């Protein structure tokens, strides 16, 4: 005896819709995969060149297996072109910017998310307005300001300016993350006996960890790759960061007329490795954070 009613049986009798693999869809499949391969090659090719040329004694402007495997390019950029100082500067500035930014955006984002105060929505949108300002438009005032304050050619100047560039967007991002953390969690912590500040650090921030990872990752990447502000803030050799050192090494090693591809590739490897390291270290949290930050959009 069937337990399914006649109507349900009729519905079940209709075969599930399966799309036959006809010539048209096979072509579609092929075209799609060709497109994927093209995109993959387009993005991966520079990296392949970078990592092969860096270890090639006679690197050229095209991809090839190194004619002679060597680490000489790396030795040269450190011994002849003082790349180590720039690398150290960049690591210090990027990590410090990341720490300062995360600290500031956590507190600011939390305040905009949780605390009620007069003109809150005005301030919130004013923060966003700052983000729309083109960076190049701020170059002259930033130059003047840092010169007056004696912050040119200093780590503090670089860290403050890089942090300021990133703050508006990341404050908004963190506000979104805090909005998604249930208020009851911190209220429970208050009632359990914690002060509001301790509850923020012990309960809210750990729950908002994916958001913090995104803020940390983005601020590190921005400070690491930033060129424009470094150009106007730094002219002393000892304070230069990687992008500037990269360009100068390239020029003094032969410039455009006699490009030293091996050296350029070695510098490129050192430029991208820390970025990749940061990404892989935080990738799970970053993906979770980025997914949740776009969920409400």
């Amino acid at each position, binding site marked *: 005896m069937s337990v399914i009613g006649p109507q349900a049986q009729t519905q079940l009798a209709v075969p599930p819709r399966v799309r036959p693999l006809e010539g048209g869809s096979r072509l579609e499949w092929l075209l799609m995969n060709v497109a994927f391969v093209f995109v993959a090659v387009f993005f991966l090719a520079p990296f392949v060149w970078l990592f092969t040329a860096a270890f090639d004694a006679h690197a050229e402007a095209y991809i090839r297996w190194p004619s002679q495997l060597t680490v000489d390019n790396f030795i040269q950029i450190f011994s002849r072109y003082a790349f180590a100082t720039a690398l150290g500067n960049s690591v210090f500035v990027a990590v410090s910017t990341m720490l300062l930014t995360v600290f500031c955006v956590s507190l600011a984002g939390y305040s905009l998310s949780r605390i009620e105060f007069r003109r809150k929505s005005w301030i919130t949108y004013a923060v966003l307005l700052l983000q729309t300002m083109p960076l190049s438009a701020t170059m002259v005032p930033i130059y003047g300001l840092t010169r007056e304050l004696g912050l040119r050619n200093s780590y503090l100047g670089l860290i403050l300016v890089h942090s300021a560039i990133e703050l508006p967007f990341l404050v908004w991002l963190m506000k979104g993350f805090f909005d998604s953390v249930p208020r009851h969690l911190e209220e*429970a912590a208050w*009632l359990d006996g914690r002060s509001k500040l301790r509850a923020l650090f012990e309960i809210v921030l750990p*729950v908002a*960890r994916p958001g913090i990872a995104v803020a940390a990752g983005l601020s590190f990447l921005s400070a690491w790759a930033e060129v424009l502000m470094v150009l106007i803030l730094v002219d002393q050799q000892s304070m230069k960061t990687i992008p500037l050192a990269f360009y100068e090494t390239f020029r003094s090693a032969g410039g455009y007329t006699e490009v030293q591809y091996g050296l350029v590739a070695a510098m490129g490897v050192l430029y991208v490795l820390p970025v990749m390291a940061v990404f892989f270290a935080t990738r799970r949290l970053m993906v979770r954070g980025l997914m949740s930050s776009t969920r409400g959009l």
Partner: protein
Amino acid sequence: MSRVEYDDVWKKFPTRDAPAVQGLTLDVADGEFLVLLGPSGCGKTTALRMLAGLEQLDRGDIRIDGKSVVTLEPKDRDVALVFQSYALYPHMSVRDNIQYPLRVRKQSAGTRASRVDRVAKLLRIEHLLPRRPAQLSGGEQQRVALARAIVREPRVFLMDEPLSNLDAKLRTHTRTELKALQQQLGVTTIFVTHDQAEAMTMADRIAVLDAGRLQQLGTPDTVYQRPANLFVAQFIGSPPMNIVAARHENGSLLLEGGWRIEAPRIAKDAAELRAGLRPEAIELDMVAREGAQPAEVLVSEPLGSEVIVNVKLGDVLLKVRTGPDVRPDPGTRVFLRAQPAAVRVFDASSGAALN
């Protein structure tokens, strides 16, 4: 010893026109289980949150053991709140969740472990201690939230609809356990719910709220048998009290639909009256008796242990509770008699009970 007093408490949110809580005055005795009952938006949760320190008062005072707590931070009030969402810390294990309030109070690791184990045993959640909240069912999360509230031995337990996320069967079971637990621990408890069955079964006293005002404060029996106004009469009871327009005539009460019943003694008269009869305060007979009112059966609703018979009296629909064997068919002529002592009379304009 923890007595809680609300003294003319007012609270208005800027986003709403009417105050959320209006002149609430309540006195909760030590060890009492008080239920704040009312529909959504009646101000019951706001009243609870003000006691916890999560909302500020506009006016009035809240005292615990005679001392005002309105200026104290939530952390200094020594009250524990079980949230509707349970609010378990998702990044901590169940054990860490439960011992969090003890860690905050800088209890030693040994004390923490023994108290967590004791509470876990009491609530039968020992096997859940290493898990994370996301790995627990709703019922398990509810127990963990309860354990976190109990472990620190607070002066007052506050519970904000803690059973509403559980399925019906588990809710009934947990209700019983919670009441037993509260009796065992003897801690003053204020429990917020919109479910009148929860209120009736668990409370020592029920405070019924509507539109921010206290409508009635009394034992479940009082609130059920002697509702203070039309709102309470219709909010409490399932099915609710039958409310019928009525007027005094020749010393008796004439109900809409032509039913004349013995008038109960009332304190004062009003221009328009409403008579309230609980479904069990009406006797239903299949044969005519002296003084019984004939009516027509609309439909019978068997509920297993009882039957709710819907009868029509003119344009008025009445619900009558009968035994499981009485199931008159639709259209059957039946005869109704009211128990005079159980009839409640209300002023139609103010809604207040008159007897």
